[in-house]
């Protein structure tokens, strides 16, 4: 569904992505992980057409450059990390924004658009709060509303930038379960960026590790989320526990490691 090859993006003089290759099939969920500033968000924004760069990007074999703006918005839906919520907008009106690429430029929504909004709201259990003001919702409810907007776009590609940031562990799980359900029901190609490596390992079909604008490791979660990789690219001390092929990444405090003999006796980190 998504086919990136040799993607290079520079903002100003700074190269953010260089030579990124990534392929995602329909119904597949790929998590892009990597340290801050690695270029994860830029990769999503490139695929969504917000930033431009070199290389080839194709959707189902069609070059993205050949798609018109509205066609592209009907192909790719992006849930940004920190979306702008217009003042006082209701849940219905916000989710209806997702229909923008389906409504002709000077027209207004029709019954088909309302049906798509209704379906998205129903699927995310939001029909009880259609008239609520989005800004007054809790973090978990809000994330569901954002997903509903993306769903209303009816795009086969769903991009999620840090969908679980700022949510408690229960709501993180709830949101990821929802994405999992939607992916299966609608056969979506999903790319999400994730900071929580354990959650990435739990949900992703594949994990791509991005560092300094390059994909440095790609494969199953067990292949990519190793102690060596996390230590090398995140400069983090972690223990990785294998839970039936799904790695659990535990950050370790330095004096714990000292106690475990992982650091030099003088207390200076081994790295």
């Amino acid at each position, binding site marked *: 569904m998504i086919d990136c090859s040799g993607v290079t993006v520079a903002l100003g003089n700074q190269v953010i992505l260089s030579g990124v290759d990534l392929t995602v099939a329909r119904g597949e969920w790929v998590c892009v992980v990597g340290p801050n500033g690695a270029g994860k968000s830029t990769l999503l*924004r490139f695929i*969504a*057409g*917000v930033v431009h760069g070199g290389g080839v990007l194709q959707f189902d074999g069609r070059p993205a450059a050949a798609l018109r*703006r*509205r066609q*592209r*918005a*009907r192909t*790719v*839906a*992006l849930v*940004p990390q920190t*979306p*702008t*919520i*217009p*003042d*006082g*907008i*209701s849940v*219905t*009106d916000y989710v*209806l*924004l*997702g229909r*923008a*690429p389906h*409504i002709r*430029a*000077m*027209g*207004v*929504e029709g*019954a088909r658009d*309302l*049906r798509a*909004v*209704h379906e998205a*709201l*129903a699927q995310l*259990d*939001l*029909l*009880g*709060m*259609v*008239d609520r003001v989005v800004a007054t919702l809790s973090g978990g409810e809000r994330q569901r509303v954002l997903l509903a907007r993306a769903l209303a*776009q009816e795009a086969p590609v769903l991009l999620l930038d840090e969908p679980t940031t700022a949510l408690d562990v229960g709501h993180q799980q*709830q949101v990821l*379960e*929802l994405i999992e*359900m939607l992916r299966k029901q609608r056969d979506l190609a999903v790319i999400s960026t994730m900071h929580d490596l354990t959650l990435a390992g739990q949900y992703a079909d594949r994990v791509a590790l991005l560092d300094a604008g390059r994909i440095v490791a790609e494969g199953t979660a067990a292949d990519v989320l190793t102690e060596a990789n996390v230590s090398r690219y995140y400069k983090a001390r972690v223990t990785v526990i294998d839970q039936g092929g799904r790695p659990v990444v535990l950050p370790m405090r330095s004096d714990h490691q000292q106690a475990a003999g992982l650091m030099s006796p003088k207390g200076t980190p081994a790295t």
Partner: protein
Amino acid sequence: MADAGRSHPWPVTSGSQAEVGGLELLRPARLRPRWLVAGALTVAVAAVAGLIIGPVFISPGAVLGHLSGFHPDLTMTELAIVDQIRLPRVVLGLLVGGTLAISGAGYQGVFRNPLADPYLLGAAAGAGLAVTLVFAGTVGGGSTVGAAPLAAFLGSLGAVGLTYALGVSGGSRPSTGSLILAGVAVGSFLTAIQTFIQQRHQDSIRQVYSWILGRLSTAGWHDVLLLLPYAAVSWVVLLTQRRVLDVLAVGDDEAATLGIDVRRTRLVVIVAASLGTAAAVSVSGLIGFVGIIVPHAVRLIAGRSNRVVLPLSILFGGAFLCAADLLARIIATPDEIPIGVVTAFFGAPFFVLVLRHSRKGAS
């Protein structure tokens, strides 16, 4: 009710379990007929008041009878007053007020800034400078006063054009911020030149000042016909953008992922609003406050969607300016006070009232 959530794979919290209704559950922001009726009634009341009140009082029944085409129950003098003096002035007020209000609403939408007004990009400074040049006699030679409207129109558009050119040349991705800053720079620069010229031509200060404070002219139907085509184009174009402006509220990048051509939309709205503003300024001078207060009042009362704000701004903006003009005419009879003074003097307290009322309603 109890099993409404059974199809969901996660525990559904109470309160979100409303019965799954049909499409009628969804009530997207729309212009409700009752608001349209309220707007039209307000326009009608302001217009009729403007027709019957003045040095000569004319009975409302006779005016309404005349307007609806029945046999006029008016004397020849009254007929002349209504047809040649008051009616064109009322219509001009409706056009100027509606145009300034919808232009302000358009600017606020496209800049996502509640303080944006139709003069944000230098329209006022450009018109002010051009008119000062005319009154100071430094351009146009002898009989110059008649050249003021054209000068104001061109000066206004020129300044906005300059601002836009400067604002988008700043970087590869022009932002609303760079446009607003360019507007500040252009406005200050042109105002500096205007002040300099005014100092050198003290004899014209009074004329310039009176023009800057704004007034609805008494030139009969001439100004109405001058403004009408620009106002019509500006209204129609802005109204076509009302839904897209709502999408733009999520920011440039997100709007782009929703298939909106952000740059083109912004250009279309700015051109349409500036054209209308320039034409309004050319016939009425610089009338402040309408472009900010009316869209805000509409937003507070009827809702924030541009689908509601843009059309209602035309109606309430027109009615507001019509009423302000009536006050400007009768407060200090036989003199007229500048309409800009009235819009601010009565507009500001009214706005505070609306603000307080809506806060109470919200809490």
